[in-house]
Every structure is written in C-alpha cells, then in structure tokens.
C-alpha cells in the first residue's frame, strides 16, 4: 500500500534536507512532491525509495497535502522584505570607502610540470612509439621545461591519440593466470569420475590414486591400497590421466 512521501519521511525521522541529500535531489523538488504540487517523477522514485529504505511501491506517486498545510507559497525573500527607511547619515559616519577597483595582482609564474606528469608523458610516448625529440620539437621546448598546464594539455592530446589510434583496436590477450578455473575443472571432473591420476613428484617418484579432494595448494588421493595421501602441489611436477584400460595397473 502506498503512502504519502511526507508521511514516509517523517516515519523515518528524516528532514527534507536529509532526504534530498540522500536521494540526490533538490530540496525544492522534495517539497513539491510532498505537497502534491507535482507527481513523483518515475526517474526519481527509485532514488527516494533507496533513500528511505523502502520499496518503490510504498511511495504514493502524488502525495496528499499534509492536513493543515496550505499550498506551498513562495516565501518572501529577505531581499524582498520592506526595509526600514535609511536613516540619515549619522554625524560621526566614517568617510566613504574608496570604491576604486583594486589593482589586479601580478600574474603568478606558471608552475613547472610535476615529475609524475613528465614520467607519464614519457610513458605515453613510449607506448605510442613516438620519439620524445619529435614531440619536443612540436611543443617547442623540452618536456622537462613544460609548465603544469602545458603538460596537462599534452597528456590529454596523447591520451586521445592512444584512444583513437591503433591501441583502440588492440586485441588484448586472454591471460587466465589470475584464475585456477581450468585445473579446478579438470580435477573436479577427475574426482567425480573417480579417475586415477598418475603424479610425478619433484624427486621423480610417482604416486597414483583417485582424487578424493583438492584445494588451492594440495590434492588428496586414495591409492590402490586404500591409504589416503595429501600431495602438496609444490611437490608435484605433473600428472596424467591414463587412457581407459591402463588404470588397472595401478
């Protein structure tokens, strides 16, 4: 059942400003929603629901005005309020300030480029395959002498070149070295099928057995005589799954 926005807000003991802040919406808009002057925009309803920790369906799209509250009226701004008449200048008034504009401060010398900017520029040039001397000729000075703004502008230019150039279509190699999914699948299949694996260890000794469990660092096997051994992967060089028919030899 949906409820008026103002009622929901008050149930949560939130101020209008807090709700507006949480939902990322202007306070004025919240007030308009609460007063029923405006229906809640469908784009805002999820924000409001999240901010109030409720379901979207709980919010009434057009709130009923709070009982006793009049329609929102434009409050007179302080500037609009009638001001008391200006008293005549007191006898001990200060002399009027000199309203002439202050002299503009002398422009600061541009800051030199940060070392990180220079390093970044050099890195980009390297990746783009462009000689540093060529770019220095373009900008008219060595990279190390660029000011901060010029270095920043050059960085943007080179980064745009990177995006638009051959790097944009670069095919990234798939390097699955951050995962162990393939070995995981292999060992899972072997365990489920009850396969016997033949392990070669670091000292060229061999162990054969059914995989009964494995983890990131070890593999547990049950050997033909029924004993269970946990092999540390660091001790394993390789393992094979013999073709069907050869396992009886184990």
């Amino acid at each position, binding site marked *: 059942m949906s409820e008026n926005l103002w009622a929901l807000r008050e149930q949560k003991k939130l101020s209008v400003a807090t709700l507006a802040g949480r939902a990322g919406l202007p306070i004025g808009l919240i007030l308009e929603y609460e007063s029923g002057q405006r229906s809640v925009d469908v784009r805002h309803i999820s924000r409001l629901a999240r901010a109030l920790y409720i379901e979207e369906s709980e919010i009434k799209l057009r709130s009923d005005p709070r009982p006793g509250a009049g329609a929102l009226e434009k409050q007179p701004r302080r500037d609009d309020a009638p001001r008391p008449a200006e008293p005549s200048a007191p006898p001990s008034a200060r002399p009027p300030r000199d309203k002439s504009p202050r002299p503009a401060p002398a422009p600061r010398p541009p800051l030199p480029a940060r070392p990180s900017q220079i390093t970044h520029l050099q890195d980009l040039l390297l990746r783009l395959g462009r000689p540093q001397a060529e770019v220095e000729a373009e900008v008219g000075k060595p990279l190390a002498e660029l000011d901060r703004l010029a270095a920043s502008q050059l960085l943007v230019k080179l980064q745009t070149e990177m995006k638009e150039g051959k790097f944009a279509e670069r095919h990234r*190699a798939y*390097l*699955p*070295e*951050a995962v162990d999914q393939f070995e995981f699948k292999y060992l899972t299949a072997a365990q489920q099928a009850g396969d016997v694996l033949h392990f*070669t260890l670091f000292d060229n000794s061999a162990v054969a057995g059914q995989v009964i469990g494995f983890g990131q660092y070890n593999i547990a096997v049950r050997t033909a005589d029924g004993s269970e051994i946990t092999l540390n992967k*660091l001790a394993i*060089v390789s*393992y*094979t799954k013999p073709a069907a028919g050869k396992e009886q030899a184990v």
Partner: protein
Amino acid sequence: MSLGDTLRLLRAKRGGITPVDIEEATALPKGLYRQMEQRYRAVGDDESIRVLAEYYRVPFEDLRWRLDWPRKALSHALVASLRDHQPITLYLWNGQAITGTVKWWDLGAIELETADGGRVVVQRHAAERWEPRVTGDASTVDAADEDD
C-alpha cells in the same frame, strides 16, 4: 621454477617464517621480499638475490638465473603457443622435458597434448625453462601487466 616460486619453496622448507621475518633478518627494503616472491614479473637485483642466497644458504647462481625466467614470461610463451597452435617444450625441475601443444593453462597448471596424443598436466612452478621463448608483443605485455 621462477625466482618467486623458488623463494616460496625455500621459505616453506624453513617453515613458519614470514616475508616480514626475512626482511627483518636480512635488512632488505620493506616489501621487496614479498614482491620478489609473489609478483609474476621479475623483481629483484643481484644484490638482493645475493642477500637471500646467503640467508637461505643456497648458491647465488641457483637463484640468479631464475630472475630471467619469471612467471610472466612463461605466460607470454603459453599465450603465443595457444594462439599459434605451436608446440612448446617445458624443461621441468625434475629433469624432464615435455613437448606438446597447450590445451589450457591457468594460474597453477598447464595441460599439454603430446605428439602421441597423450595429455599431461604440468604444474607451472615445475617449469624451469621453456622453448620457444617469447618476448611478447605490446598487447600481450600490457594485458599481462594488468594481471600482475
């Protein structure tokens, strides 16, 4: 076995010591040992390796050559082999050499299909050297760097 894997093995043999313990015992810069052990690319120099060789009481050269065969370089070779359907030969630390085409590889292991159709799963840390070596093109290097 890469330098990192070798250091990890040596530390495991000592039992119970942490990278921080080793840094304190050897006065290596903070974090260097951990990086040498854990990062996939080559980290370390002759001086740090000399210090660690003394600490673990192993010959300097046994550690030093491994710096040129980091895990990242093996990744490059595996990518190239898989992409080009070219066989790769892995020289393992038990003296074996296995040649085959890469069926899959991941964080811990590589499956090769040998010329006779057999399949063998090799633990990555067991591969000491490999052939062909691949320097890696720009894209491979970049992508590999992201994973490290």
